[in-house]
């Protein structure tokens, strides 16, 4: 069994008065400060919310939206596949008969509770009709009351897909 003798640091007079170490640390901070002052574009943080992130890609899972058919009516047929797949059980659907000849069934109520949602995207994967997507690019959703985080069918239909910046 070999023993390794570890040399204890910090015993010297220079180490024990602390000041040289503190000064060298402040020099590093000062160096960064001067460098960032000369070239602000290099700073890693941003002035959110005045400045918005530019790296939200098309595949980013943002707030959900319900897609529409060509005639602007709801594409969802209330098959409950999303609600079944949802691990957080945050999708609340009530189905009703659809009488406009386009289809037989549609959702009367379609509510997603964003406070319960874990943004896993299982609903999008499960949808057989491509009726729900998470491509709005909305990465933050702000509201004053808990009730406002319940996204209703009308709200979900009003969201649009995020425009790709050219």
């Amino acid at each position: 069994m070999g023993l390794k003798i570890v040399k204890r640091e910090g015993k010297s007079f220079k180490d024990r008065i602390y000041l040289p170490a503190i000064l060298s640390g402040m020099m590093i901070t000062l160096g960064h400060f001067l460098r960032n002052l000369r070239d602000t574009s290099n700073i890693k943080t941003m002035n959110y919310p005045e400045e918005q992130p530019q790296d939200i890609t098309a595949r980013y899972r943002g707030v959900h939206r319900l897609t529409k058919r060509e005639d602007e009516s709801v594409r969802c047929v209330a098959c409950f596949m999303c609600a079944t797949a949802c691990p957080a059980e945050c999708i609340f659907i009530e189905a009703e008969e659809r009488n406009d000849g386009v289809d037989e069934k549609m959702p009367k109520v379609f509510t997603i509770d964003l406070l319960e949602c874990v943004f896993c995207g299982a609903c999008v994967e499960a949808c057989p009709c491509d009726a729900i997507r998470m491509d709005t690019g909305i990465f933050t959703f702000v509201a004053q009351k808990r009730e406002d985080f319940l996204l209703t069918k009308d709200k979900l239909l009003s969201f649009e897909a995020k425009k790709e910046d050219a």
Partner: protein
Amino acid sequence: MANITVDGKTLEVKEGALLIEELLTNNINIPHFCYHPALGKDGNCRMCMVEIEGQKRPQIACDTPIKNGMIIRTKGANIDRVKRSILELELINHPIDCPICDQAGECQLQNYYMDVGLYESRLSTPKVHGQKHVDLGANVVLDQERCVLCTRCVRFTKNITKTDELGVFARADHSVISTFPGQPLKDPYAMNVVDLCPVGALTSKDFRFHKRVWFLQTEEAICNRCARGCSLYVDHHKEKYKDEMIYRYRPRFNDKVNGYFICDTGRLSYTYENENRNFHPMIRGKESEYEYAEGKLLRLVKRNIGKTLFVISSDLSLEEMVRIKALATMYDAQISAYEPNRFDEHFGDDFLKCNDLSSNARALPLVGIEDHYEGFALGIDKAELIVFIGRSDSGLLKDFSCTTKSIAIVYGYQPEVNEGLELLLPITSHTGRAGTFINCDGIVQFSQCAISHNSEHKKLLELLAMLIGDTLFTCSDVWNEIVCKIECFKELKFDELPKNSQKICL
């Protein structure tokens, strides 16, 4: 008896019986659409193909009588290929609208496709279209495109109800199920075609779009609509943040009682369980805490020893009747099960429905409770406290001078009138508690379904245990302590009742 070999295993079966019957009884999976044990073979869907050694081609199991020494193969690449081809033919004009189809989740087409199908469509011509959501009447909706023309529904109206409303019309690809012009489905058993339909062609208007079937949980129960006491499945589900809801009743096979079917009235009686269940205990018209109201009942009964009349419903279970009898003996009270509206001459028929609307009146004489008018009238004269248990028809008392008497109602459903009541105490409804019922032919059945709701309502047996002051809270307690000592129940075993209903002599 005959010995046959199925997939290498030897089975002892009945000679001459249909092959599919014996295979299904031995839990061997045979895909089939047109065969149904209640309707027999038809041989039109060709789905139940099996290989029989010595036969050149695969044969349909539903129209093959069993011979001794048959060697049968139900699995293997060869037979799967045959099944896949037949399934492909069945599905040629199918709209594949499973997302909007109520049958999805309990659809045989879906199941068989996942078992042996899984092919790419080879159809290059447009599909033949039929009518969708056709209202056939009697709560049945038809989708002609989803139909596989197994004719189970047609044979049901022809052989079982003998009303012949449904038929197959037009030829070849254009064949569809429909009713005759101006003659909608209207027999009182029509909704059974929804259960019979193996695919989503016939769906129930009552259940349509209310719930996807994979969410449903199933309990076994007994229908309490009439004296037949048909065996049921109760399909219920508790949605997140909501209370339990019952979505439908389905017939449960019971060869001693109802076979494979139930009547539409019984099937739709589940709505009553949902609608009138939530109400609060009331003391003299004022809402009360449940525990306080319970105590109030105990105080009322104690204060009126020797001057109490229990007016009980004949829909109560055997266990509850036995316990009320014990309660009455303890407090020296009278019991009457007089019900002027027990019989409805227009309800019964010669199939399942009975004129006697009481689900358990046969138990009354066995327990020793009288149901004639004289006893009821005499009891009222002597009583100071009248407790209605399991019923709310306090209107019966208006022919008597009851102004000085206290009236209490202990019931599972919201009563229409609750004025002039001393106490209204809710208990769990029919599907909220288990119990034994004796039907019109003396068949003893156990209803297991005890769905617990958000409400604090107690089961009647628990309430009675509190009133009596002992610990017989469950049906098995009551059976072991009391019921098994009654002469005609001595032979029965409580543990076997749920699986196997038994006949007693009335």
